[in-house]
């Protein structure tokens, strides 16, 4: 059953009760949150995702009301992963996006059967681009722009590499848009579904772009990596694509890996296979259409990486 087939009331009842188990790529995560607006948030962003049948649920993500003893007038919420509190309590108006943050944490801290990169991944014609970068590099904006140009969304946050064969596993979830990029993406994708903005978060204003239905329907379809990109948005900069030597690409990917050390030899082998199988380049850009054209050239085989 798809989550969108549940009514808002049914969704809210599950979220407030035993939880709503959601299949997202290779994960089944149980979500719990009784806060007003959480059900609408989840239904808005995950209508095509399947509700897990419950046999295997990897992690429990719960957002619960939190009583602040020193400031009892504050209405706060606390994120819990597998019943353990995580990070400080936040204003309860962030309860719905806290489910997203909890999902990110659950995937990033639990999925040690996969090598996890902090990277956006999109795919076209069976070939995937791994865009690794720290927050604030314009990675999610570029990812959304490529999705608007027909690239399949794997993730704007996680490059999930299967060590056995080096394949990238999709985990298509809402794309996290920050500050100016919200309007940029709205202009690029006028028909896109974007959540209400959440102001004054630690990263400024956040909004979430619903993943395309096709990306969700194909969420169990991996692809092999074809390019490694280290994107960097710089206002006014002309587009430049500078090749990155393999040893440097390895080091840069290492800096963007969440669990390389936990995987030990398997992590090394998976990372080495990745840099040996793909050209890597540092992409500096400011103009979104020019960046899209560059990637289209790569996909068409017209642009040398």
């Amino acid at each position, binding site marked *: 059953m798809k989550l969108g087939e549940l009514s808002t009331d049914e969704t809210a009842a599950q979220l407030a009760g035993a939880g709503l188990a959601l299949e997202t790529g290779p994960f089944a995560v149980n979500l719990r949150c009784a806060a007003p607006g959480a059900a609408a948030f989840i239904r808005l962003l995950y209508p095509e995702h399947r509700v897990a049948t419950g046999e295997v649920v990897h992690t429990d993500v719960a957002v619960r009301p939190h009583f602040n003893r020193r400031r009892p007038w504050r209405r706060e919420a606390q994120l819990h992963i597998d019943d353990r509190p995580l990070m400080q309590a936040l204003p309860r108006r962030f309860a719905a996006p806290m489910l997203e943050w909890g999902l990110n944490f659950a995937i990033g801290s639990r999925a040690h059967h996969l090598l996890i990169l902090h990277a956006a991944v999109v795919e076209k014609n069976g070939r995937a681009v791994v865009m690794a970068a720290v927050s604030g590099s314009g990675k999610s904006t570029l990812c959304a722009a490529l999705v608007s140009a027909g690239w399949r969304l794997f993730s704007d946050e996680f490059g999930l590499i299967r060590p056995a064969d080096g394949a990238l596993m999709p985990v298509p979830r809402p794309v996290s848009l920050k500050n100016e990029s919200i309007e940029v993406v709205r202009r690029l994708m006028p028909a896109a579904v974007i959540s209400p903005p959440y102001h004054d978060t630690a990263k400024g204003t956040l909004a979430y772009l619903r993943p395309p239905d096709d990306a969700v329907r194909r969420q169990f379809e991996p692809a092999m990596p074809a390019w490694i990109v280290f994107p960097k948005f710089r206002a006014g900069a002309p587009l430049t694509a500078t090749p990155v*030597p*393999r*040893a*440097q690409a*390895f*080091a840069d990917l*290492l800096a963007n890996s969440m669990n*390389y*050390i936990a995987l*030990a*030899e398997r992590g*090394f*082998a998976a990372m*080495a296979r990745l*840099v*040996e199988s793909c050209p890597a380049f540092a992409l500096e850009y400011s103009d979104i259409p020019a960046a899209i054209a560059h990637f289209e050239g790569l996909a068409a085989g017209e642009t040398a990486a």
Partner: protein
Amino acid sequence: MRRWRVTGCRPDLIRLWDDQCVLFNLSSGQTHQLNALAEAALRIMMQRPMAPSEIAEALAIELETEADPAWVQQFDQLIAEFDRLGLIEPVP
């Protein structure tokens, strides 16, 4: 003459790309970048335990260079660095 053997790496955990080497250190779980000469020294030590002077001599022949004192001395430093990283240990 003190000889050293490699205990923290295997040939399949070394990649040499252009003149830069990346290797996984089994002892520490760390990943290191080495230059091509250090990689060559480590590889040759994987064949059998060696002293710094023996590594210097073997690589001088392989690379067709003169094993002068400065050349030999750099392998003393290299062995000390490998030891510090936990890649090698002395043979009793």
